[in-house]
């Protein structure tokens, strides 16, 4: 194939003249690293408003590289073998606990994060990271039922687990939250270690399975919007996003209570820019910055000072800031060691495969 080298050459030439800036910069950045300060973030998509990063770069002179991941378990699997160069990562609470247990995180220097003072005391000493030694909360939220108001008005988890009215028009998550919500419906704690209680939940789900349209991989809200389903077990923020496009959709946290979750900012071991990482975390919790992000992502913020600055309609929206009565009945999922996790995951696998 004597013409092969020509083919490659032509491709490279075209690419080089075409996309020079985006392509040359990374190569140069190695040489310029000594001069430019940089921080590398690894976050969920659509989880920060478009103005914050440029504002941070302007205020501090630190360049930001922003990379995206799609799920906690992928993140963990990738970081397990070593940190490929991320400074700030945004895992969820139970995975933060796992990372702490696996010694994957750097302890944080609270002196470098003065804006921690803005955070509500309720969030400053969580069970998954006592004293916030390794993490700073970013946003938190609930799991609940998204629904189409004109055809459904659920108040309990029974609407998807025992009620047959909407059979075949229900989407649940492919993740373990579906099982945990089942535990809540049965009146048990989502962190129970009692095998009988877990088994009861498995049986409940296996019976309810006939009414599920699908185990959606994070797409429950899309199915609601496209009218494939009338009820969807989903995160509050996801449902809020589709509510903006369709007035007929709404969100409710069932009366039995629900699973609370929290996404944290952590600094994995081996992070190349520790000081810059702290600067970014501090920047995010400045009251004004945080309020701006919160308004955009539509998740409840743990930052008290920022909450003061939010418009009333967001603060009063029960889909964003659930009422205390609901919070009292809801729990965070705890990481209780690999064996318990194994038991829970096996239970979920049985529900999926059975």
């Amino acid at each position, binding site marked *: *194939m004597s013409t092969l080298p*020509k083919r490659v050459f*032509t491709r490279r030439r075209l690419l080089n003249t075409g996309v020079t800036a985006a392509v040359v910069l990374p190569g140069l950045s*190695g040489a310029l690293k000594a001069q430019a300060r940089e921080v590398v973030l690894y976050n969920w*998509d*659509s989880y920060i408003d478009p103005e914050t990063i440029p504002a941070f770069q302007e205020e501090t002179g630190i360049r930001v590289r922003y990379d995206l991941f799609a799920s906690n378990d992928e993140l963990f699997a990738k970081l397990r073998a070593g940190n490929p*160069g991320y400074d700030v990562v945004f895992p969820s609470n139970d995975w933060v606990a796992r990372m702490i247990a696996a010694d994957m995180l750097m302890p944080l220097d609270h002196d470098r994060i003065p804006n921690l003072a803005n955070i509500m005391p309720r969030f400053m000493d969580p069970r998954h990271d006592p004293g916030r030694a390794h993490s700073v909360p970013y946003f938190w939220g609930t799991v609940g039922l998204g629904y189409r108001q004109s055809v459904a008005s659920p108040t309990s988890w029974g609407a998807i687990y025992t009620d047959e009215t909407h059979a075949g028009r229900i989407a649940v998550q492919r993740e373990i939250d579906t099982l945990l919500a089942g535990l809540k419906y049965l009146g048990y704690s989502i962190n129970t270690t009692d095998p009988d209680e877990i088994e009861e939940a498995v049986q409940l789900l296996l019976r309810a399975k006939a009414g599920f349209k699908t185990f959606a991989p*994070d797409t429950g809200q899309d199915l609601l919007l496209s009218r494939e389903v009338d009820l969807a077990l989903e995160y509050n923020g996801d449902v809020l996003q*589709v509510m903006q*496009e369709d007035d007929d959709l709404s969100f409710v946290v069932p009366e039995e209570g629900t699973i609370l979750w929290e996404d944290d900012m952590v600094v994995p071991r081996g992070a190349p820019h520790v000081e810059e990482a702290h600067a970014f975390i501090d920047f995010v919790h400045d009251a004004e910055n945080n309020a701006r992000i919160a308004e955009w992502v539509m998740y409840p913020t743990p930052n008290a000072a920022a909450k003061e600055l939010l418009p009333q309609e967001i603060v009063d929206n029960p889909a964003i800031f659930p009422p205390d009565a609901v919070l009292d009945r809801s729990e965070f999922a705890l990481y209780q060691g690999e064996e318990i996790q194994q038991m829970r995951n096996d239970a979920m696998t049985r529900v999926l495969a059975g």
Partner: protein
Amino acid sequence: MLRRGPPPAPLDYTRRWWLRAWLALTFVFLYAPIAILVLFSFNDSRRNIVWQGFTLDYYVKAANNVSLLEAFSNSLVIAALSTVISVVLGGLLALALYRFRFPGRPAVEAANQLPIVVPEICMGVALLVFFAEVGWPRGLPWPLSLSNIVAGHVAFSFPFVAVVVRARLAGFDRAQEEASRDLGASEWQTFRRVTLPYMRPGLIAGGLLAMTLSLDDFVITFFTSGPDTLTFPVKVYSMVRFGATPEVNAASTVLIAITIALTVVAMRLQAPPKAGA
């Protein structure tokens, strides 16, 4: 019977209406989602599930999304490198298996087909662990930073090329090679003028396959890439999980347009005068 033009000869299959219909139907089947994909890149809706209106905003957004562009160019470069290396490795392997007897032949053949069989996630994790254990250097300047991704892509692509080329070689008449040698040509000349041209359709088909595998790979690329090596499928995957905004469709449409353009150029450059190929 009245027909447009002369009736198809017995072997003129492509002119038969039923074959053409089948071909057309298949292409409709293949391209319907693509057409929707392109159409929805103009959709004025953040979640992009239902058509809301026409806009070019998302093309603008995509063009301004520096990391998306970077992921773009990375993916194209990786695909190009991977395809070239895979075609070479796969073609050579096919020749070896076709031509030579050697001890342990079935085992070597089967081993080289394992990458086709292995679950992708297993291979992704294997490469992750391997590169970590071996201490593969990180933070290399571009394009060396793509080296581990390319290595992985080649590893799972060249067996596909080998399989396709072997299928092609299975019909090769060795008498042609012998005739060439009898007429005084050297081994190398025989190879270049007799064997290689015969292999060409197989190599092209294999190359197209390798390119497809590389451009669309998510799992293995996810586990071998880092913050300085963004690739398109991984980037899209993480964006799409939280709302397939039209931006992603726009980027995909542009990627496909660029790839078509580049391939057409490559094929033009490659096509020698068709004298009895």
